[in-house]
């Protein structure tokens, strides 16, 4: 009797356990053909961009019949998902990598150095040097930039005409003067500002101060504070600058499109955005006004990188080579959603002569690339938090910067 009970109990348990485990086995994705399947991860972008990428990938598959590329889209929290997948060993073979995040990831060894694959016909010297350098560490290249954008001044031509201003401001002083004429109370601001380091980095360093030195935050100094003070003055004293959330807009581009700011500093992405969302606004672009007589702007770039644990490194390189090669890049940037990082492609597509994109292309020469080592994400977070409180007038800028620097360096210590 007793034995029977025990046996039946054991049997029941085994049954339950077995039924639980059956869900875990996965059908193996085996290759019947000799085709190599590689995956590519990236964020989505708008439908037209997606179609362009599909086009480029189709072209690639046609010219490389033994490689099959699968595009895997990560729509939100791209870096978090990518890092988690890299840890779990399920990341794609090739993925988009923002230059800003590159150093941190390179440091861990999760990214394959690409130097050994590069051949002469790939023509590395054709790339814009600052964008290429953003993916380099200790002389090795870990990615090739697929496209970039700088910042340019977008200005509302109708508002400029109404205010009796001939053209876009050339210097920061002119911008301040024009903003006064363009501001209409709390309805329309002359300058739609983003009080964030990623947009102001070039300005912060315009007087010789350094935001980061040897992986430590060093921005709490007079030269940085002096360089950024004009932004605060425009918001607090002149009341001619505001950020998007102050007027109820979601972004700088939206603020500009809704006619709540006469000038904003945005990148190439704003051109298709304006076309789609606010086609009636008559606007122009210009190079950013000079600060202390010096030209400056930011440059944001994204590259293709290879997973160091990829099982198909040769095929992955073929893909990167094609996507960042002259042919692939030409198709990818042909519609103007992104600017080509290869000089030859840029010359062929003629964006430097485009009335709207010309100022963006001109900025590439003197732009500060948004990448400054592995600690930049920490520095950015702390800087932005404290800079905002100075921007809102809660405390003097110098004090806010000091606090931000102390906090950032503590956090860097925590991370080490």
């Amino acid at each position, binding site marked *: 009797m007793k034995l029977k009970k*025990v046996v039946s*109990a054991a049997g029941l348990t085994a049954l339950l356990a077995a039924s639980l485990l059956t869900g875990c086995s996965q059908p193996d994705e085996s290759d019947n053909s000799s085709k190599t399947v590689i995956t590519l991860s990236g964020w989505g972008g708008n439908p037209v961009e997606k179609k362009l990428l599909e086009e480029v990938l189709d072209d690639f598959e046609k010219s490389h019949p033994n490689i099959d590329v699968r595009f895997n889209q990560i729509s939100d929290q791209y870096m978090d998902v990518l890092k988690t997948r890299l840890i779990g060993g399920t990341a794609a073979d090739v993925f988009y990598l923002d230059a800003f995040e590159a150093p941190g990831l390179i440091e861990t060894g999760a990214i394959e150095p690409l130097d050994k694959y590069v051949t002469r016909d790939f023509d590395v010297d054709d790339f814009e040097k600052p964008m290429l350098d953003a993916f380099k560490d200790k002389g090795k290249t870990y990615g090739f930039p697929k496209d970039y954008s700088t910042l340019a001044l977008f200005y509302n031509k109708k508002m400029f005409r109404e205010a009796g201003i001939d053209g876009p401001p050339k210097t920061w002083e002119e911008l301040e003067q024009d903003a006064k004429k363009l501001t209409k109370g709390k309805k329309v601001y002359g300058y739609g500002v983003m009080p964030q380091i990623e947009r102001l980095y070039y300005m912060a360093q315009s007087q010789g101060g350094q935001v980061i030195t040897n992986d430590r935050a060093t921005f709490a100094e007079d030269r940085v504070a002096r360089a950024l003070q004009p932004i605060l003055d425009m918001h607090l004293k002149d009341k001619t600058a505001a950020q998007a*959330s102050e007027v109820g807009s979601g972004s700088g581009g939206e603020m500009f499109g809704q006619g709540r700011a006469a000038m904003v500093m945005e990148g190439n992405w704003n051109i298709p955005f304006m076309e789609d969302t606010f086609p009636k606004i008559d606007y122009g672009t210009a190079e950013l006004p000079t600060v202390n007589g010096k030209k400056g702007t930011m440059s944001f770039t994204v590259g293709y990188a290879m997973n160091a644990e990829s099982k198909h490194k040769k095929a992955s390189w073929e893909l990167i080579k094609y996507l960042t090669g002259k042919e692939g890049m030409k198709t990818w940037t042909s519609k103007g959603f992104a600017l080509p990082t290869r000089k030859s492609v840029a010359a062929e597509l003629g964006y430097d002569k485009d009335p709207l994109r010309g100022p963006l292309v001109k900025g590439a020469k003197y732009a500060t690339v948004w990448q400054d080592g592995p600690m930049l994400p920490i520095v950015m977070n702390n800087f932005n938090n*404290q800079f905002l409180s100075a921007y809102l007038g809660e405390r003097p800028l110098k004090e806010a910067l000091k606090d931000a620097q102390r906090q950032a360096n503590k956090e860097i210590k925590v991370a080490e």
Partner: protein
Amino acid sequence: MAKSSFSKKSRTEAGQGYLFMAPVLIILGIFVIAPILCAIYLSFHKVELLGGYNLEFRGLDNFMKITFDDRAHIALKNTVIYVVIVVPLQTLLALVLAASLNAGMKGEKFFRIVYFLPTLTSSAVLTLIFMWMYNQNGLINHILDTLHLPTYNWIGDPSVALLAIMIMNIWATAPFFMVIYLAALQDIPDSHYEAAELDGATGLQKFWHITVPNLRPVTSFVVIMGLIGTFQLFDQSYIFSGGSGGPNNSTLTVVLLIYQYAFKSLGTMGYATALAFLLAIIILVATLLQRKFSKEESLY
């Protein structure tokens, strides 16, 4: 002899019991107990997950780091302020709502459903809707403006951003506890109220001297659940600030900070687990204190 056979029998019975419980024990062990032990283990190490798994024993280093990490202090302060304000208010609101629904009005069922709706909606959706209402030109500022009250930049101004989340959460969580109160209210015997009426008690007196004391065990439950829930505030402040805890760290909560250290920055997983461990201890202490101050068992 008899004694030993008895103990043998009880032993086999216990064995059978465990055998029957085995599926649950295994699942709990793998998915609940093991992760907790693993987290405690990790909190004493520097954990490098990317580019080759790497564990380095650091002793109490991670816990020491908490003492000089300003953002951890800010997160803890924000969370405590949030708990201290939200828990009493949502408990009170839940009680008032439940009492009003129990008063025997017409259309009680309809209101019961209407009140409960916010709880049924996903918190992510709620947050997004509230963010539109909190917009500078949104509904809430519009109402404040028509009433000639000052308007706020709810999302961008550090001094009100946390308050905005509090209002939203009290509104969304109170109905859930209201339902629990409602069930408890219907359990209070009518004879108590009748006796009070004979003594000439007013409605308010009946509420304070009969309803509230009779609800004490439920209140205790509601407060403990509220404490645990509010200490773990994450999704609302994550969506509100786009994951940064801004503006100016004003919506940074402990769980959001843990998330940032675990998944945003590299190589700080060990520190994140130390913070999580600390939060668990804080919640435990808060719950124990709450139990000490309310003598709930006396009623059952």
